[in-house]
Structures are given as structure tokens and as C-alpha cells.
């Protein structure tokens, strides 16, 4: 289950099928296209393709600052395998693969096993600014088997990766507060929330909107009160003029953005971050 071939096929499976078909010039099912790519491409070309198409992956993005300047180009991460070095605007850009193991109990063999994945990680760095993007594995372990298996224990993939970065750079990663940027976009109708969490003085308020309703549109007066409080992880729908992914989560108080669907654009995560930061006071 955990040969290099199987792990690379799982990695390719994380890309949208239309991108894989476009690359391979193949039709057929996603599995057939993946088989064809693995049989005809080198590991290096697959790594390059993953790097060039990182923006199409489901991903979790973390915006940090540090106390002193970091140089990601000189940083060694013991368990990350470097697959891309380059620049993105003013940022140094690095992409890595990290092997993670998801534990499960196999009812057929009556044994405890792990299903291994390559998790792509993208790091952008310019001085004290560090942005970390981690591919989020969407599929349940069970979906990789025809017989019954039971996931055992939960693995904190993101925590482990962030901890490794923190140790490697030798300093704290300070989460960036993007409340004002997100609120600006919300006030100007670029976005509206459909699952809204905000911190009140002595409680966390959660508003789950019915059907396709959104918060500001439905409760304009309560929206004004909401604007005075720190936002927590909120699910947004995008209504702005740019062609970016339709839905995403933002925890504005800790600079965390999650896109759990395939983006049509080459890098909707960067576009969204630029929109937020351009308006973040």
C-alpha cells in the first residue's frame, strides 16, 4: 500500500481531473489518467507538475511574521523533501513533500497499518514574513480500500509541519491578524459569511445560516455589531469581481485561510491573500 508508486498516485489524485487530462492528453477515468501519467512521466516531472499546480490543490494557508528576518533558502527541514526552488513576486518560494502516515486498523488482515501520503508544502518568505501552505488531504482513509478499515487516532498534520518549520527557523511564528482586511472585503460586499463565528467578550458566537442565506445580507444591523469584534473561523462565499474560488474559510484573528475545493485559477489562494492584505490596516 505504501510503495513510492502508490504514494505518487495518491499525490496525483489530489489534483483536479481536468488538469491531469490536460497534462496527459488522455481521456478516461481519473484512475486511468493517473496510471498513464505514472507510467509515462518521471518522478522529477511529476514533482515539477505538482509544484507548478500547487494552486489547484486543496490547501490550508497560514500567514505569519517573525521577530527577525528569516532566510528560507538557507533553512534545512529534516523531514521535508525539496522539490522546487524559485521566486514568487518579492518572495522566495520553496515547495516540499513530506511523508505522513495515517494509522488504521485493517479488518481483513486483523492488523494495525498506516496509509502513507506525500503532503505538498509551499513556503513563501521575504524577511520577517513567512507564509506556509499545506495541502489538505480531503479523502477518508476508508475510500482507498474495497474492504473495511477503521482509521485509528488522529494525526495533526498541520501542527506537525508548523512545528517543524518553527524549530528549523529557530523562532516563533507569530500569526498575522487580518481582521481589518477581511472586514473591509465583507463591508464592501466582496464576501459574505454563511457560517459565522466571532468572539464576544464572554462567549464565542456562531451563526449557521439557513439554506443559501448569508449573514450581512440577512442581518445588516447585527453585521455592524459583528464588525466591532474579533472574527474566528468563518465560512465565506465570494461575490467580488475576480474569478476566484467560490467558497473558503478564514480565521482572521490568526491569519489562517482554507480552500477546500479545487481552484479554477492558477493560484486563487495568493489572489485572495493579496486582496485581504491590500485592505488590511
Amino acid at each position: 500500500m505504501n510503495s513510492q508508486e502508490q504514494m505518487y498516485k495518491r499525490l496525483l489524485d489530489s489534483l483536479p481531473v481536468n488538469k491531469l487530462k490536460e497534462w496527459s492528453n488522455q481521456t478516461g477515468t481519473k484512475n486511468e489518467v493517473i496510471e498513464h501519467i505514472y507510467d509515462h512521466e518521471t518522478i522529477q516531472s511529476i514533482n515539477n507538475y505538482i509544484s507548478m499546480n500547487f494552486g489547484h490543490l486543496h490547501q490550508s494557508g497560514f500567514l505569519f511574521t517573525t521577530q527577525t528576518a528569516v532566510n528560507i533558502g538557507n533553512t534545512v527541514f529534516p523531514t521535508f523533501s525539496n522539490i522546487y526552488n524559485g521566486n514568487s513576486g518579492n518572495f522566495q518560494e520553496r515547495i516540499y513533500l513530506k511523508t505522513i502516515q495515517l494509522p488504521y486498523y485493517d479488518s481483513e488482515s486483523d492488523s494495525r497499518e498506516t496509509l502513507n501520503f506525500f503532503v505538498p508544502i509551499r513556503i513563501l518568505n521575504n524577511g520577517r514574513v513567512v507564509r506556509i501552505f499545506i495541502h489538505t488531504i480531503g479523502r477518508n482513509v476508508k475510500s482507498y480500500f474495497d474492504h473495511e478499515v477503521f482509521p485509528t487516532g488522529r494525526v495533526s498534520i498541520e501542527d506537525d509541519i508548523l512545528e517543524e518549520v518553527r524549530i528549523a527557523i529557530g523562532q516563533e511564528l507569530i500569526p498575522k491578524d487580518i481582521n481589518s482586511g477581511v472586514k473591509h472585503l465583507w463591508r464592501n460586499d466582496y464576501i459574505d459569511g454563511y457560517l459565522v463565528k466571532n468572539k464576544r467578550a464572554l462567549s464565542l458566537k456562531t451563526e449557521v445560516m439557513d439554506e443559501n442565506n448569508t449573514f450581512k445580507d440577512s442581518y445588516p444591523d447585527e453585521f455592524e455589531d459583528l464588525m466591532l469584534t474579533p472574527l474566528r473561523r468563518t465560512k465565506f462565499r465570494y461575490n467580488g469581481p475576480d474569478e476566484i474560488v467560490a467558497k473558503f474559510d478564514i480565521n482572521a484573528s490568526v491569519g489562517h485561510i482554507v480552500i477546500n475545493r479545487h481552484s479554477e485559477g492558477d493560484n486563487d489562494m495568493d489572489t485572495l491573500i493579496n486582496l485581504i492584505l491590500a485592505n488590511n490596516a
Partner: protein
Amino acid sequence: MRDLISKSEIAVRKLNPKRIYVENIRAILNTNQRIAQFVCDIAVRLGYFEKHYSVECKNDSCGKLIKTADSLEGLGRKLHCDICEDNHEELYEWSIEQLNVFIYYSYVKGSYEIA
């Protein structure tokens, strides 16, 4: 200008003096984070505010503020969420390094009403 001051007064009255976040101050003053942080720091120095630390449950389905303290050390090394333990969530205990620390302030001098 008078309208702006009036709006700010209304907003300030909505604050609970026991727990004020920098973002509350930033939003009320309609300023940037750096100035809002500066205002809070000055308020601490002048004795109007006291600074506190808090941590919140990491499970997306929860998010409860699980502990507060007057210092980072006071939060302790291991934190646990009773709601998530009751709900038999797989994760309900964390080390302090795994959690985001949120700073807040309490108002200690003078008096004003809680709306």
C-alpha cells in the same frame, strides 16, 4: 465629526470591561492594528487596562475559550477542553505550543456601564 464621536461612544458602551480585545479597540477607533495595540499598551502603562492571556479549544466544532491567566506561564503546559471531552472528540487535550494565545485586556479604573 460629532456623528463619528457619537458612534464611537455607542460602540464603547457595548464593550464588556472584563474582556477587551485589540480588535475591539481597532474597530471602534477605525484605525490600524498598530495604533490599536499602542492604545492598549498605553492604557496598561497608565493603569487603566490590565493585560491577560487566553487560549481557545482547537477543534473547529468548538472554539471555547478554555483558560485565562495574567501571564503566559499562568496558562500552564497542558490544556484541555471539557466540552470536547464530554463529546468524546478524538482531540481534547493540547500542549500550550499547539494553541494560539489570544491577548485581551480588562478595564480597571473608573466606571462605565455594560450595555
